[in-house]
């Protein structure tokens, strides 16, 4: 394993590399196709470099543990808006997740629906591309349209365009109070309608998940009186859907981390679709187990091993990512139409002309 402790060192390693490199942060999300090459760890580039609570911005080196970033923010009553998932339980991995890998995989949780994905909070990056060039884009201010937005391009590029060395985020105040409005007894289709009703209301729902056979949960966050008021309004609004209760149980970390699938055998798929398409798609998939997040826009599906859910998605928009599978030959990412695949391949060829960064991870 190659470890680097600075950007300069990293640039030298990449420029001098003669064989493929397998980039890791904490190695907790190791569900890609087996990648060849030396392991290059970024965990040595660690530390928060700047945090200005009054400006809602934080800058950290890519190898900084996510927990360290979250703790620094919590100490000031703030948080990462996009609620990144912890993959360890689901994937049965160990290690310390890094903030750079959250960016590399654009990892976002239940609040994504309201507050945006990781890429929406990301305001700046520094990285070393496959040529060994050190590149910066964006910065530490939340409004910046100077030049092309490579910040977004780097988010979700899984270390195939460059190795991140520094990431900057716009953060948000954490909310002092939280309540769940819970509806029980809904079929998947009706649950998605109920969630649509709630999400189309002005009551600022920040989580909308359906656990089939159990309940449909709507999360409200904010100041206490406001949360109480909105819970009452939502209860009224959803009356016709059935039995409604309001509770304080915090089940959102379980939704975020899909812990329900952790102990169950089978392949795990993450499917992003138009919410109203979700129940019909799930019917076609014959899943072992399913969880709906993002008001139905995100399906977590547990299937029998070796089944490619994409066959059922023809004619439905959206995309499916294979997150856990015994058969590692199934492609991780949804195949792109030829025109987009050509653009993506062109970008990879520009940023990594020798094809040495995580080859095969994305295509």
């Amino acid at each position: 394993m190659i470890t680097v402790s600075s950007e300069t060192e990293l640039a030298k390693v990449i420029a001098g590399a003669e064989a493929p490199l397998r980039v890791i942060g904490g190695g907790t999300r190791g569900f890609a196709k087996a990648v060849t090459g030396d392991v290059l760890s970024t965990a040595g580039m660690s530390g928060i470099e700047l945090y200005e609570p009054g400006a809602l911005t934080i800058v950290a080196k890519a190898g900084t543990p996510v927990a360290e970033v979250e703790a620094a923010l919590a100490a000031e009553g703030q948080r990462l808006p996009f609620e990144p998932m912890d993959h360890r339980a689901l994937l049965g991995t160990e290690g310390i997740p890094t903030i750079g890998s959250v960016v590399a995989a654009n990892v976002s949780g239940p609040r994504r629906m309201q507050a945006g994905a990781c890429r929406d909070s990301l305001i700046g990056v520094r990285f070393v591309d496959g040529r060994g060039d050190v590149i910066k884009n964006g910065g530490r201010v939340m409004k910046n349209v100077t030049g092309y937005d490579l910040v977004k391009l780097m988010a979700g590029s899984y270390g195939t365009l460059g190795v991140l060395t520094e990431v900057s985020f716009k953060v948000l105040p954490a909310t002092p109070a939280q309540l769940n409005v819970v509806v029980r007894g809904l079929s998947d289709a009706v649950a998605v309608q109920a969630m649509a009703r709630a999400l189309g209301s002005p009551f600022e729902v920040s989580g909308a998940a359906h656990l089939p056979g159990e309940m449909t949960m709507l999360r409200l966050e904010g100041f206490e009186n406001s949360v109480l008021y909105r819970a009452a309004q939502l209860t009224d609004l959803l009356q016709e859907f059935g039995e409604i209760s309001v509770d304080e149980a915090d089940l959102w970390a379980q939704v975020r981390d899909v812990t329900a699938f952790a102990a169950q055998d089978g392949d795990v798929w993450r499917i992003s679709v138009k919410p109203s398409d979700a129940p019909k798609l799930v019917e076609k998939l014959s899943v072992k187990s399913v969880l709906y997040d993002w008001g139905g826009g995100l399906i977590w599906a547990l299937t029998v091993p070796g089944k490619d859910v994409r066959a059922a998605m023809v004619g439905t928009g959206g995309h499916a990512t294979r997150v856990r599978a015994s058969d590692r030959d199934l492609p991780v990412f949804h195949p792109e139409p030829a025109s987009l695949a050509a653009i993506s391949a062109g970008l990879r060829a520009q940023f990594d002309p020798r094809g040495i960064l995580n080859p095969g991870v994305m295509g």
Partner: protein
Amino acid sequence: MEMPNPNAAILSRKAEIVARLKEVLPADAVISDPTETRAYECDALTAYKCPPLCAVLPASTDEVAAVLRICHEMGVPVVPRGSGTSLAGGALPTADSVILGVAKLNEVLETDFDNRFIRVQSGRTNLSVTGAVEEEGFFYAPDPSSQLACAIAGNIAMNSGGAHCLKYGVTTNNLLGVTMVTMEGEVVQIGGAHMDAGGLDLLGVICGSEGQLGVVTEATLRILPKPEGARPVLIGFDSNEVAGACVSDIIRAGVLPVAIEFMDRPCIRATEAFAGAGYPDCEALLIVEVEGSDAEIDAQLALILDIARTHNPVELREAQSADEAARIWLGRKSAFGAMGQINDYMCLDGTIPVSALPLVLRRIGEMSAEFGLEVGNVFHAGDGNMHPLILFDANKPGDLEKCEAFGAEILKLCVEVGGCLTGEHGVGIEKRDLMTTQYTDTDMEAQLRVKDVFDPNWLLNPAKVFPLAHTESRRAG
């Protein structure tokens, strides 16, 4: 500001190019008469003008593709155009270019309230997108002040923002998908009604690419339910420093206003003379707006006013009625017009870390004296996006150049304190030559390589965004 010399070979083939374009478009959609092409000679950066070779107004994605195939084949540069409200010269033509205007593409294609999106053709104006969904209680969040006129196409190209983006984000955060035509004439669909990209985030890089990567013809946009209500307060201070500290304290207290707007004394005086909104004559003024039910608004405003009081404001004004709320916003909304009443002005758009606010305002004041040009500041304080308005007299020889030099100094200062050249208006031609202050050659090279992938021959809006010297070899090729 320099523009590349027009390609004489293209100018000499004008008749042939126009004839080819007329083969794929109705005759009235190809504008080549010099008296008529003048309508496209500039955008809202009116100091720079140049009529294009011709302008085309296609009415469908297929027509856009046909036009681009011809221009690609004939090696003719294309400048996409929405409504021409760019303040950066993004839509400024060169004499050898074809203006491709999307004004005829203005239909709503689909509204879906259950899934909270709208699909529109890209020439549709920003405000009319909200207009198409507001009866159902929804709105499209990014709200540039130019929203009555500017098109979604231009908003996507510039990644435009607005007064409410502290809470709702800018265009890129509200864009779900596009239909785009590449310079080669290929139609691609990126994203859609679902969230996030499967592969690389191409949508993210197209948004904000200033018409250099492809021509966007349709867009899927996120729509949001309208809040129950909104109400502003006005807070006046006798020092910019204190106003800046108050902004930071409000944010730290955990309230997230939808807007925090800041005006300084020159701007307050100008707007008072122009609009008579009844603003106090003080050094700095904040307008803070919050949303929710009446009770929620009361609670948030109480917290904000408590914080403000610790900073000894000279004025605290809570809107008691819709009428009073409108009066609080009146001055802010007429700020540009008010400054325009006094003289010609140039509107800058750098962003700074909020903590650098007092320093930057002081330096701008000092530079104003050095250059002998007045400047008023009005800006989105919550996110540090400044809008210094420099007054000059376009008829006075040398004044424009002096104003540009002053503007450049302000933008360099923004970069120096950790900010950037442009927060929402884009680089265009206006800030093109300052890119080297923010980016190294390597940083820029990475961006140029992205354009190489989408537009290998560098025909789409080629003379923008990057210093000409950095793109010369590519444009020539």
